[in-house]
């Protein structure tokens, strides 16, 4: 039987935050040897870095101090620490894109005495192969969305390319540079598909998307007019757009042995140009602008420079604070459920951050770590904002922006699909094993559950077709069928072998662990056991129970 123990509130309270701080001596050593500057609580225009790559949570000092300060100022108290089970599920969904399986859950929950268990969990997940896969999925959606792409665009190649980058721990500035400047075949070099997906309309989309993704700034409305509420001008948009003027694409054609010409993907390349961007102002006057970065720097618009390379340099150079800030905020939003700037990609004077000093300091440290994505994840997941419960208190139920309680995050379609597969092993049932069927299920989920606007929203944007699919769909039917190969079949087999534990209780506990990543409470166990008392069809009741748990709000909401 699974030896499962719940981490009670008492344990959580005892462990508290102390367990998250590495010994002060080590922290000091980091600061002295690697960064050289102590943590500064005063905000300066350009804070000094507090740490360099890869190290863990002496960052908590200043992250938690800034969070605390904001709570104090607003008069809210953070919610208590979440349970170990909640933390486990959170971390799996955010880092691996799926819930933990029963074995993983039992392994973690049985280890409740180790004060470093949460930190170790994060390390294990960062080293897990699903981490890079998940990051590839998350950033493919950021870069090109989920809408079906034009035939030219190889979305899979982009996802695979990203996965490789995250697996090899490529720094974010290098990943960004490659996405902005990639050339060649979109099948050979997956990064090319980013530009290719946004080619239409004189690269208007590529301009808007690049400033949004890499700089966190939404310039798209300045395509047509000056920004109504900050300093951005129409000229700023077209100045960036001019960097993409020479970028071209063409079909790659190969000749087969038969002599037939076959199309084999698209090539993106740069052609020398001395073109300026032209745009129509509201008063119908036509403006022209050479390649100009947002701070006003222009490049020599000669024929010998590759303009995209110059743009990538401006965007990703260390002096560009906003580049680091934009990524820090995006990752904060991904993990904590809401950016310090919200929405995550709408920086500007019109939309100030909730914790400006914290954001600046994290950006400086991210840069000092050489844009180390895993380091940033370590810092954020170690902070109080990632450990507070999603249960609100009287003190904080009005707070939306200060991270005093964790928000409920609806699963993305990809998370939902992978989690259902993890929980039920539906794909191992007869007829469920084919790759084709699995692909078909996933497509159904992406189509049914896609909502481009959901983003980091904590609103539940469910629809009737989604609920119908969850209640009555083919995947769910397989999932709770109890057919050989499925998790339910396995649980039934195991339940019969238990000694010293009633089979029903074993099965109920395992269904809760598989779906909700926690054992049932005493009350839930009583309630579930009662269901068997009134119905002799044990398999039927287990099927109903599993169906119920998988359809529940607690399953689909990352808490």
């Amino acid at each position, binding site marked *: 039987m699974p030896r499962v123990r719940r981490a009670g509130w008492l344990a959580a309270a005892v462990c508290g935050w102390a367990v998250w701080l590495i010994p002060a001596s080590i922290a000091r050593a980091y600061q002295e040897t690697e960064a050289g500057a102590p943590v500064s609580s005063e905000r300066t225009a350009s804070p000094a870095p507090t740490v360099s790559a890869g190290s863990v949570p002496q960052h908590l000092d200043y992250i938690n101090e800034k969070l605390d300060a904001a709570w104090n100022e607003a008069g809210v108290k953070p919610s208590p620490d979440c349970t170990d089970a909640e933390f486990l599920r959170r971390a799996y969904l955010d880092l691996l894109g799926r819930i933990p399986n029963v074995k993983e859950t039992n392994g973690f929950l049985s280890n409740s005495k180790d004060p470093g268990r949460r930190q170790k969990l994060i390390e294990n997940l960062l080293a897990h192969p699903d981490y890079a896969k998940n990051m590839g999925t998350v950033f493919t959606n950021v870069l090109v969305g989920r809408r079906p792409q034009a035939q030219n665009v190889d979305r899979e190649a982009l996802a695979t390319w990203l996965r490789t980058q995250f697996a090899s721990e490529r720094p974010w500035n290098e990943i960004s540079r490659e996405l902005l400047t990639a050339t060649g075949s979109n099948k050979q070099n997956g990064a090319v598909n980013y530009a290719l997906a946004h080619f239409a309309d004189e690269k208007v989309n590529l301009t808007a998307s690049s400033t949004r993704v890499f700089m966190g700034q939404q310039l798209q409305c300045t395509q047509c007019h000056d920004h109504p509420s900050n300093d951005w001008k129409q000229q700023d948009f077209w100045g960036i757009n001019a960097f993409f003027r020479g970028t071209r694409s063409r079909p790659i054609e190969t000749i087969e042995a038969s002599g037939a010409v076959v199309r084999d993907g698209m090539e993106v390349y740069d052609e020398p140009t001395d073109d300026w961007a032209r745009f129509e102002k509201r008063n119908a006057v036509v403006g022209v602008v050479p390649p100009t970065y947002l701070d006003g720097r222009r490049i020599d618009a000669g024929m010998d420079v590759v303009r995209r390379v110059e743009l990538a340099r401006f965007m990703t150079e260390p002096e560009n604070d906003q580049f680091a800030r934009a990524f820090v905020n995006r990752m904060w939003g991904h993990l904590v459920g809401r950016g310090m700037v919200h929405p995550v990609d709408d920086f500007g004077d019109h939309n100030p951050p909730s914790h400006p000093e914290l954001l600046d300091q994290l950006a400086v440290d991210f840069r000092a770590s050489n844009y180390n994505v895993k380091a940033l994840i370590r810092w954020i997941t170690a902070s109080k904002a990632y450990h507070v419960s999603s249960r609100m208190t009287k003190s904080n139920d009005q707070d939306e922006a200060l991270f005093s309680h964790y928000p409920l995050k609806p699963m993305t379609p990809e998370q939902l699909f992978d989690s259902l597969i993890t929980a039920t092993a539906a794909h191992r049932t007869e007829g469920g094993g084919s790759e084709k069927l699995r692909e078909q299920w996933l497509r159904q989920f992406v189509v049914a559950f896609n909502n481009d606007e959901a983003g980091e929203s904590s609103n*539940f944007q*469910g629809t009737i*077709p989604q609920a119908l699919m969850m*209640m*009555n*769909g083919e995947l769910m*039917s397989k999932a709770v069928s109890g057919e050989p190969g499925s998790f339910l079949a396995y649980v039934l087999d195991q339940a019969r072998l238990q000694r010293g534990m009633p089979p029903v209780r074993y099965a109920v506990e395992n269904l809760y662990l598989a779906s909700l990543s926690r054992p049932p409470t005493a009350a839930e166990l009583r309630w579930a056991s009662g269901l068997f008392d009134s119905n002799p069809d044990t398999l039927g009741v287990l099927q109903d129970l599993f169906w*119920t748990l998988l359809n529940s709000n607690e399953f689909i909401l990352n808490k």
Partner: protein
Amino acid sequence: MFERLHTPAGMTRRHFMGHLAATSLAVPASQLIYALQARAASPLGRSHKACILLWMGGGPSHMDTWDLKPESEKNGGEFRPIATSAPGIEICEHLPTVAKQMKHLNVLRSLNSREGNHDRGTYVMHTGYTPTPTIVHPSFGSVCSYELGHKAGEDFPLPHFISINGPGEGAGFLGMSHAPFYVQSPTSPISNLRPQGGIAELRLGRRLAMLGAVEDNFRTQNRGQAAADHKAVYQKTVKMMNSQYTRAFMLDDEAKELRDAYGRNSFGQGCLMARRLVEAGVTFVEVQLGGWDNHNDIFETLRNGNLPQLDQGMGTLVEDLSRRGMLDNTLVVWMGEFGRTPRINQNGGRDHWPNGWSVVMGGAGLKGGQAIGSTDKDGVEIVDRELSVQDVIATMAKAMEIDLATQYTTPNGRPFKIVDGGKPVPELI
């Protein structure tokens, strides 16, 4: 929460449906639905207008449907115009059923929609906006669902935007509850509307009761609105699953002759389903007919395929709506993502042409039987009254009695007008 599943006095749903079936023997099902709808809304019938959008996927050739140019030697093509019930308006000879209804409809012959790419054209014609990467605009169907759907009453069990034969364009920032409910085929059962593998009604009821308990447990832990919203969506779904209104999706209730008249194909039957849905109280129904991207052999293809289907489906729909007194409250619009080139290419086809093409609309109180705007003899230049996509959508909004000044705030805090500029075509109002 799921008490609807259990009808009073312990009557099971199957038993209840048995009663319903007995009732519907006495009263034709369509009348039953109408009666139910009337009770849900107001004693006078429907309380708000409805729209049926006939969407021609691929970009329909206006030159071979609504704006023939028999005088043009090079661009005229193979089809001849015929007179219609609207004096002075001629349309394609392969649309005789529609021709009889032209007095109810108007042809706008001078639309410049500017987008010649399938995806972008589809987007702009559905939303009135060109695509931008950071905001997804709601399609007009979603706007109608959002603005008008509530007028059918909170208890109305069907979605207010239904798209037949294709998924339709989404609700963007208006949220998924106003996204189109997709009916893949009007002649097959709705996907997942019933449990798979012989799960009996009674057992589903048991599951829903269990779900109610589990959901309530989580909902009362004070973790936020999403937990309650999830429950609300399931409630709505169960309400729909159990509603007799889902009969609107079942065409078997209709007389064989009428089903034949609409055309025994997915477009014709989709038009019939659209009428039933509007009759039941749904606000916006899109019916798609694909296969209009005729770069090759356009005349052969249209003559034998799309034109007869369009003619039967659209012509019978307008006639049926009119006969039932529904046309005054129902806007019918015909459009696609763009028109097709006046020039006939070397493969005997026509290519993409957004620069001057036609859309058709009528009903919902619009005046009928008019042609607005025109192109020159060869169909190349607009010579009278260039219309924009915004003009078209403004006209639709006006017909639907949606205030053109309506403005939303996007999630990014930016103002969004349901129509960005554009004026309703005055001759139609």
